């Protein structure tokens, strides 16, 4: 709701979806001056009944999944605040902000190195993936080792 009151640039909540408390669709536009400038993305937030003690399930959906070293082609995002570093003080807004800045800081558009293997074998729920985060390096339980 605070996202509607204090919108982030390029981030819009689907009007009719905002009433639904368990599923939100967020529309994002790539920030100016970044590799994603002008691109449109959709982020899906699924909230469990344990929210905010349990992190929401956040994935990119729709026709355009950003090509990014931390975003798999099925929309799963390797971002520690979505699992281990989740805090109940984080809001949809702060999660969106982290994802926007993750995209904005990208220097080269490419998929994670283990993308095809991960996409074939992973659970539908990205929270079921055992993501490993070691400081500035993000390591999935698969093969990928990515500079964070």
């Amino acid at each position, binding site marked *: 709701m605070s996202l509607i009151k204090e919108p982030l640039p390029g981030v819009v909540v689907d009007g009719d979806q905002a009433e639904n408390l368990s599923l939100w669709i967020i529309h994002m536009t790539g920030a100016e001056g970044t590799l994603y400038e002008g691109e449109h993305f959709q982020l899906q937030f699924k909230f469990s009944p344990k929210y*905010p*003690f*349990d992190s929401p399930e956040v994935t990119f959906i729709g026709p355009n999944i950003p090509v990014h070293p931390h975003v798999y082609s099925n929309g799963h995002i390797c971002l520690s605040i979505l699992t281990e570093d989740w*805090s*109940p*003080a*984080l809001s949809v807004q702060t999660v969106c902000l982290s994802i926007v800045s993750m995209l904005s800081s990208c220097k080269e558009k490419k998929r994670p190195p283990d993308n095809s293997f991960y996409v074939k074998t992973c659970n539908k729920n990205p929270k079921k993936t055992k993501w490993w985060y070691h400081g500035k390096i993000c390591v999935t339980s698969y093969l990928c080792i990515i500079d964070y």
Partner: protein
Amino acid sequence: MFECNICLDTAKDAVVSMCGHLFCWPCLHQWLETRPNRQLCPVCKAAIGKDKVIPLYGRGSSQQEDPRNKVPPRPAGHRTEPENTTGFPGFGFGEGGFHMSFGIGAFPFGFLTSTFTHPDQRTSQATRGVLHHEDEFISKIFLYVAISFILWLLIA
């Protein structure tokens, strides 16, 4: 202003962490239970814990019953007595419940010590106060029992 950092409502049974962040006690308790091995402040990730939060008592705040109150009670405030007090300085936050259970537990013990030894040599300063009162109480009861026994003997 005084909103819980977890539920975003006005903080209920408010506690504040050492890092200065405000929460409802039920909200914070649930978060601490969620990650028992990694207790961090939800806002700033400072170390946090049940014994490291301070309750905030507003004026005239009564204990209203709330369904979420099935969590353990909010930790009590830590009171430190001002210096230069006389008597027994212990038990800054000893409310009814604590004294009560201790008193019952110490009852037979107090009885023995009053009979055989002087309690002052055996117990710490803080517990001595309680035992001492027990002793006086028990001696009085004994006195009354003895008097009524003698009276009964005289009458019979």
